[in-house]
């Protein structure tokens, strides 16, 4: 009996080992069979998420499988180096900053894709490599800071919606935000995501900038008089008609929820929110309005997410294969129709059937050419590689009233100057 159990145990172990070897050899030598594409996303894809739907369609069409891992943007910065050290990188990454921070770790996609396929501003903004023609990230979601409005509140307060040809100034914005709060039935006239890009929109409109380019060098201008005035005005707005806690930084509340719940008249966010609002807001009429203009004309802050392939990914070739499929005309068109976003590819546009969406989309498209030169200069300096959170902390402290707008911007300017070696202009 004992011998029988020993033999049974031995044969079981042998079988397990054999199976293990077979499955290992399948994984390593499976060049002809279906493969697994490991994709790193920054958030759990919601129902109808355009990229994950595209990935599923690709898997269905090619017989490969997709393994999605979700790592939030902020965590990607720390997890990516660890993954790289451990040779455990995904094959495709949807990212906003990694390829800019670690260009050596990503494949140069210009070998596989012609730059001319993409809208110039989209590829400049998302690739963020300003001093060479290399492309480390292709534009996937091309977004713009934009302004949503609560149409019901506007109607109640008797306010006419600004148009592309007749946009508001910052003064109009402040005046109408107060009016919305008084007569529009909303708790807050205006709200803004706690993102420096939203705030910078106001800065550019007023003629400010973070840095200036002098020949081949940059200098720090973040504490210019224009910027100090902008921040002082922004602090006042927060005290008068904005949910101050969002910018003072004491809450985790998402201002998008305030807008969706009908508590906000005007909401500065990003075009990437459009599809979510379209799907989720059922009890309120809303739309997209053009950004306000100022002494320096309009402003548009571009951004978005790119798709990149790490050089040392196990299935980097499969990643390229997916990208080629994704950026083919029909597949990108289908992606765009689901995403309802701006197109980053030349000659491919989203043509909405819903007249409301059509009008909103027209407003969003009209914003793209308003890109101020100061924004391009700021981006090309790559100042965020030196300091990023400190800027937001300075704005937070000013909004909370801990320090004056001048002290906040002077302090940040000094930090940036010390770290970057750029001279202070003010």
């Amino acid at each position, binding site marked *: 009996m004992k011998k029988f159990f020993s033999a049974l145990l031995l044969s079981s172990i042998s079988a397990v080992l054999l199976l293990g070897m077979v499955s290992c050899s399948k994984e390593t030598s499976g060049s002809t069979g279906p493969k697994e594409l490991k994709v790193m996303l920054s958030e759990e894809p919601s129902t109808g998420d355009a990229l994950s739907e595209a990935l599923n369609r690709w898997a269905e069409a090619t017989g490969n499988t997709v393994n999605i891992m979700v790592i939030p943007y902020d965590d990607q910065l720390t997890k990516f180096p660890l993954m790289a050290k451990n040779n455990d990188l995904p094959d495709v990454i949807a990212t906003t900053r990694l390829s800019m921070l670690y260009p050596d770790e990503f494949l140069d996609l210009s070998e596989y894709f012609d730059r001319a396929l993409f809208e110039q501003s989209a590829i400049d903004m998302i690739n963020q490599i300003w001093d060479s023609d290399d492309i480390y990230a292709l534009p996937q979601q091309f977004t713009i800071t934009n302004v949503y409005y609560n149409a019901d509140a506007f109607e109640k307060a008797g306010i006419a919606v600004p148009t592309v040809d007749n946009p508001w100034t910052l003064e109009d914005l402040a005046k109408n935000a107060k009016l919305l709060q008084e007569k529009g039935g909303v708790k807050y006239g205006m709200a803004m995501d706690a993102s420096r890009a939203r705030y910078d929109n106001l800065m550019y409109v007023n003629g400010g900038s973070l840095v200036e380019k002098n020949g081949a060098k940059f200098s720090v201008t973040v504490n210019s008089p224009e910027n100090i005035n902008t921040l002082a005005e922004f602090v006042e707005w927060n005290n008068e008609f904005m949910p101050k*806690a969002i910018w003072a*930084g*004491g*809450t985790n*509340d998402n201002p998008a929820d305030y807008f969706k719940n009908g508590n906000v008249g005007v909401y500065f966010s990003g075009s990437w929110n459009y599809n979510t609002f379209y799907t989720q807001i059922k009890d309120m009429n809303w739309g997209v309005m053009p950004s306000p203009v100022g002494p320096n004309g309009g402003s548009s802050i571009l951004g978005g997410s790119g798709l990149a392939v790490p050089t040392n990914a196990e299935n980097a070739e499969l990643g390229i294969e997916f990208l080629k499929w994704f950026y083919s005309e029909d597949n990108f068109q289908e992606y765009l129709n689901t995403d309802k976003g701006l197109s980053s590819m030349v000659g491919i546009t989203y043509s909405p059937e819903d007249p409301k969406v059509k009008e909103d989309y027209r407003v969003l498209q009209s914003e793209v050419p308003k890109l101020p030169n100061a924004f391009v200069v700021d981006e090309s300096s790559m100042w965020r590689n030196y300091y*990023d959170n400190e800027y937001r*902390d300075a704005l*937070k402290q000013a909004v*909370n009233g801990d320090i004056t707008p001048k002290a906040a911007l002077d302090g940040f300017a000094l930090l940036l100057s010390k770290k970057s070696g750029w001279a202070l202009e003010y």
Partner: protein
Amino acid sequence: MKTKKNARHVRAFWLFITPCLLLFGIFFIIPLFLSVGFAFTDYDGWKTMNFIGLRNFKELLVDNKFYSALTRTFFYTLFSLPFKVIVPLLVAYLVTSKKVLGKGFARTLAFVPSLLSALVVGITINWMFSTEYGLVNFLLSVMGITPMEWALNSYLATFVISFASNWASTGFFMVIFIGGLNNIPKDVYEAAAIDGSRGVRTFLKITVPMLAPTTFLVTLLATVNLLKEFALVQGITQGGPGLKTTYIIQFIFDKGFSQMQYGYASATSLVAMIIFGFVAFVQFKVSKGGEQ
């Protein structure tokens, strides 16, 4: 024969402590030494690591944000510490009292929050104290009281974090106190009763002094927990309003993981560790380890 037995005991001793020693070494001793090493470099978490001597420490000495974060940490600790010790002591006293009914249920209720992760506690507390959609403000407005701006006032925000921290730790410290209370000999109470001592007097003159070693342990653990409070703050206020609830661990975390200044963050944590060690040393000296 005796030597053989001793050798077996020694072998058993090492067998028992090896797993713990391994984990302690991998997750504490090695990172500690690495951190000390990084403190003298400009390590960015990946490819840059140059020896820069004492530069990080020099920068730290003139960093106002570091001093502010450290001061806030001590203020928060001093504010919260009495609650961390007194509340669990009273709860433990109540749930061991013969006069209280449903003690098992009460103990369970008090202990459950300590099983929750800091993240869950943070979410729950946010749900309660959110200025716009929070339960507490809803109840206040139902009662006709003006809702509080929890997220905008630095004292209220500190109170909310302290409340959350106390709520989450009361059960754990209660269990330690229950152990201490059960160790007090019954005949001491009987002798006190014969001498006419009752209620609060017995509690203050017998229970509290007899619990001194337990109270010392709880105080020490609570102090350390408060000084390194992090997850709760991230979950509730993210260090705001402004930087009013940015404590020292947030400061270190931000420098290291958000700004990729691992060297500077390591130098800060080294200085913080020395300061916290000194605090613990003073506690030991002042209370004589709770032995007297």
